[in-house]
């Protein structure tokens, strides 16, 4: 276990769109410490989601180094990155993305099933997490039987099922009403207080203000850290 959970060093990300080269990230340096709760803010198209994806090993930087929990990941093979994603990183999306044919409990169990966890242990862990996010009574409900806030809480439980070292949340409250948004943020804050490292992309200044650190990105560059 490393105190420096994730380190981005001189990260540049270039995209080629048609004949034009677009710089999404330009010499970005960022350190995420164990137990951090970082809000990534910035206008649309500033590079927030690209930064999150590079942290999660979903995209590779054009140049620079990425270290997650002590492992250099920027040149890893797909198989190695899959392993990192399974063991160390979890995502929470703007919209609750659940498989509609599965119950809340089964959705929470899914990452564990992919990573080969033992069924009984996995089920117990998923049940605990659903109780933890206040959905102990809704475990066997399908997605269409849950409200938006409940579905997002299922996604949070799902993100935690493999005990990730780093939770990456991409505008997790973007599609929720104010009251539900607060519930979700309070849940993330509670998880952070228990030691969970969280990096959250948000447009909401109110939510950003509640984070321990705020990092602003403009035109692919970090403005403040």
């Amino acid at each position, binding site marked *: 276990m490393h105190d420096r959970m994730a380190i981005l060093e001189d990260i540049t990300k270039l995209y080629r769109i048609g004949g034009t080269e677009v710089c999404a990230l330009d010499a970005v340096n960022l350190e995420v410490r164990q137990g951090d709760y970082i809000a990534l803010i910035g206008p649309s198209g500033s590079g927030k989601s690209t930064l999150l994806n590079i942290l999660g090993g979903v995209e590779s930087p054009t140049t620079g180094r990425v270290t997650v929990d002590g492992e250099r990941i920027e040149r890893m093979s797909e198989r190695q990155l899959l392993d990192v994603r399974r063991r160390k990183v979890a995502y929470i999306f703007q919209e609750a993305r659940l498989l509609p044919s*599965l119950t809340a409990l089964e959705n929470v169990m899914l990452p564990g099933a992919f990573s080969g966890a033992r069924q009984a242990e996995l089920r117990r862990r998923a049940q605990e997490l659903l109780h933890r996010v206040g959905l102990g009574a809704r475990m066997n409900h399908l997605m269409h039987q849950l409200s938006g806030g409940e579905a997002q809480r299922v996604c949070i439980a799902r993100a935690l099922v*493999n005990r990730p070292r780093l939770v990456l949340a991409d505008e997790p409250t973007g599609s929720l009403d104010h009251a539900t948004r607060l519930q979700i943020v309070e849940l993330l804050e509670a998880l952070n207080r228990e030691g969970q490292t969280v990096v959250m992309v948000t447009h909401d200044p109110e939510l950003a203000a509640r984070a321990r650190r705020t990092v602003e990105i403009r035109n692919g560059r970090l403005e403040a850290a």
Partner: protein
Amino acid sequence: MKIYRVALREVARRRIRTLYTASGITVAVALLVATLTVGGAAHHDLQQTIARYGHSLTIFPATTHETSLQGFGIGSGHYIPQDLIPEIKRVYDAAIRAGWQQKGGLLLAEGAPGGLDIIEDPIIAPRLYEPAQVLDRDVIVAGVEASEEYKARFWWEIDDGALPAAADEFMAGKVLADVARLRPGQRLVINGHEVKLTGILRETDSPDDYMLFGALPTVQRIFDRPNKISLINIRAMCNYCPVGEAELWLNQQVVGVRATSQREIAQAQHRIFANVASVIGGFVAVSLAIACMAVFNMMMGTIHGRIREVGLLKVLGASRWQLLRLFMYEGIGIGLVGGALGAGLGIVIAQLIGPWLLPTAIIQVRLSHVGLALAAAVLTSVLATLYPAIHAGRIKPAQAFRAL
């Protein structure tokens, strides 16, 4: 949470899409099951025909040109001397043994394993046919040797009354009995001789249904045909007896008779049916190939439409192999649905058209046919799903992420 359960839940959730995707397989499998069921019934029916007539020879007087079972040479004035039967049996036995050895069969001394006694004696059933007026109707009276006749025509059953036991007792075919309103116990006069009707034969779908049967000596006496018979039916008692060889030898060596075998006719019918079945089988194969392409198109479209879901699964840690399995399980599910519906539809089609095509055959559904159809359906679906599933596994996480 097992991956196959995720796949089957998805198949169940998207019922309409599943049914639509599986519809091509359903049609192809229905054709396959109907063909196998009706074809199987036809094959069985032909085997029964061969069993009835195939392993037998019919021997007519050589001077009679009429050799069909319908004509019998009745009224032709041509007969076979009854005392020629031992000679016919001697030639028949020799021909069967020679043919058996030609086919590579080992024949040792009687009593030894593989000895001569593995070839059972044939059943030799002579008949004398005579036309007569009975109850003001034109009737064919057949004189038979009861014990041999009942063995040769093992499918005979009594519909009413009992088998004739005494010399003056007769039995009537079903159609004759119905038309002439004959009843067991009734007295009949045949060519001036009074006889007793003891039984009615169950319908056989053969000329026997129109005849009156009595003991051969009695009929010979009634019609004053001592030592005369119209034909001899020889039934071989081994499955692979070289009856064709016996036919050849009898025609060459026994003067005054002509032997004919029904086996070749039945086998020719069998070959024709096999050819027709092959053509239908070809159509089924083409249908399955078309169904395969349809499922392929549907699955490719589905995967493109579900790229967000593929992306989500990748993010949640699904490997290429797990995604491949997930979509392959869906393919198996679609194949099973299509196969089960197709099997049901095929059985219904077979039950509807089978009796129309083959009125005498029993249309029986075999579990092995249903199993084969399900296997063909699943194989078709799996083949069609393979490439789309591989394609889903190859989608890059970043590409899938951009779709989220």
